[in-house]
């Protein structure tokens, strides 16, 4: 579920970004199209009217009465004095809203005015026509862009799905492999080949990093084991030599020295095995791979400590529920219980009392208390066994 969520997020982000960019592009494009059409329409009309004005000028030049001729339907021809002729301009046009008597409505009107000099006389020819308003064009432009936007949106959403499915597939596979990566696994991780260079780089990096992590873990583990081996062997030798020395002919003061060495050696060995245990715990070598029957184990542990309890004149009260299973490494469970019980005994003072209660909740979780009275010593609070 997790990796799917991340993947969707990525494509959703891409989609949103594309959509945003599309929107901006379409808005700008819409404006450009709108002004372009507007300009083109005017331009075409102006050219038509210039031609019409030229035809009217030709009629004037030819002479005769052309009133009522179709060319004069929307034309105003007037003779003007020479000083009214603008310099350097032969034609100009103006646009504006004006009354259209044919349609009885205000419409957009284009006026094109040309100046001619015919037989020494100056003429001004103005023709006009009503053209579609640009405002009337706007909805059409907006409409067509709406459709374009819709088509693009559908395509983007579909392509986002396809990208997610095909292009991001190697990435998702990599994510899945990484999620199941375990430092303790024997073989290096295998990532599917991909032609996407970024993913290839990512995969190469991940393969290198996980391999390094795995090797580091292995060498740490080996170091721990070797350290254990290297240290335990000399300790074993010294202990053996002391055992042998004890049996030789020694004086009392030598015996004391040997005893002190033995004690120190005992401590050394104990510290060392604690350190090794801690390292192993940190390396997670004691993963719970099976369920341990804590009830059975508790009884066995208590049996082995029974005499110590009697020797210290302690009273033991037990309430151990049957068949409580706890997911735990068997040797850790053993160690835990032995330590709990032996601590409870050691820190108790006679005549004290100790209680061991173990119960299982419905889910099979164990709860346990090992406590002592006299001197307060509850190494494990309620639920201690189950929680640790």
């Amino acid at each position: 579920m997790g990796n799917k969520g991340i993947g969707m997020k990525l494509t959703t982000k891409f989609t949103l970004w594309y959509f945003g960019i599309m929107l901006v592009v379409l808005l700008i494009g819409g404006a450009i199209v709108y002004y372009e059409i507007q300009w083109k329409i005017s331009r075409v009309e102006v050219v038509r009217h210039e031609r019409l004005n030229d035809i009217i000028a030709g009629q004037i030049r030819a002479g005769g009465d052309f009133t009522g001729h179709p060319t004069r339907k929307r034309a105003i021809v007037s003779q003007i004095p020479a000083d009214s002729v603008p310099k350097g301009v032969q034609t100009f046009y103006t646009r504006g809203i004006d009354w259209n008597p044919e349609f009885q409505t205000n419409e957009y009107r284009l006026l094109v005015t040309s100046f001619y000099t015919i037989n020494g006389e100056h003429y001004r020819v103005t023709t006009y026509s009503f053209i579609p308003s640009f405002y009337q064009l706007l909805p059409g432009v907006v409409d067509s862009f709406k459709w374009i936007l819709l088509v693009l949106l559908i395509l983007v959403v579909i392509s986002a799905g396809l990208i997610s499915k095909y292009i991001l597939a190697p990435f998702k596979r990599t994510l899945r492999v990484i999620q199941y990566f375990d430092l303790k696994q024997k073989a290096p991780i295998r990532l599917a080949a991909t032609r996407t260079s970024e993913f290839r780089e990512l995969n190469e990096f991940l393969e290198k990093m996980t391999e390094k992590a795995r090797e580091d873990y292995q060498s740490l583990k080996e170091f721990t084991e070797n350290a254990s081996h290297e240290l335990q062997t000399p300790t074993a030798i010294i202990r053996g030599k002391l055992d042998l020395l004890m049996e030789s002919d020694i004086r009392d003061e030598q015996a004391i020295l040997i005893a002190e060495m033995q004690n120190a050696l005992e401590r050394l060995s104990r510290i060392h095995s604690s350190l090794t245990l801690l390292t192993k715990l940190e390396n997670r070598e004691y993963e719970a791979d099976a369920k341990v029957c804590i009830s059975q184990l508790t009884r066995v542990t208590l049996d082995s400590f029974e005499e110590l309890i009697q020797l210290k004149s302690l009273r033991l009260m037990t309430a151990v529920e049957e068949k409580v299973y706890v997911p735990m490494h068997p040797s850790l469970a053993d160690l835990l219980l032995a330590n709990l019980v032996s601590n409870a005994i050691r820190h108790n003072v006679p005549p004290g009392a100790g209680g061991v209660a173990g119960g299982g909740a419905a889910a099979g979780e164990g709860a346990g208390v090992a406590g002592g009275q006299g001197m307060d010593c509850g190494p494990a609070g309620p639920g201690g066994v189950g929680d640790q």
Partner: protein
Amino acid sequence: MKVLIIEDNQELARNIHDFLGREGYICESSETLEAAREKLSLFQYDCILLDIGLPDGNGIGLLNLIRSEYKNSNVLIISAKNALDDKIIGLEKGADDYITKPFHLAELHARIRAVYRRKNLDGTSVVAFNEISLNTDTFEARVGEVLLDTTPKEFDLLLYFLVNKNRVLSRQAIAAHLWGDYTDNLANFDFVYQHVKNLRRKISQAGGMDYIGTVYGLGYKFNSHKQG
């Protein structure tokens, strides 16, 4: 008893050699798997002490060979690793027992004897010395005909003394033997003292000789030469 010590550390091998030698055992040592294989093909051994980590390979491999070719030999694995995997594999492959470094020589001896008893005594599992006899099947201890009322730990302790007669047993060794590796043996010295005291009292009350004596500063000793 003939013992083959397969251990790459010469000092440790010599310790075992010296200790067991005093018990009258015939010990031979080999430092490599190769040498061990050769010795095994030439001689027969009652007990093989096998170190797991050897310079030319893992001792577990040799265990397979021993179990298929030399079935009568007991195998006791010596390991420094204390790794559960080794322990389980070792016992599954047919090792008779497993001991972790650093061990007390008396403990090693007790283990060798226990394994030997289990396999070689043709049904009689009685360890006896003079008037004291221990039945390791029924956990009954007797002085003469009198049945001693011993606790399991006291029985264990007496057996430990009997196997290691005339040896000085340090309190550490006794604590480690009775309560194993996990518990803090230093803290259990008082209990060792009390167990020994109770045991001596029970033997005396049953009319037995008080063989167990204190060795100044060091621990205890089962003195077989003691005369009433």
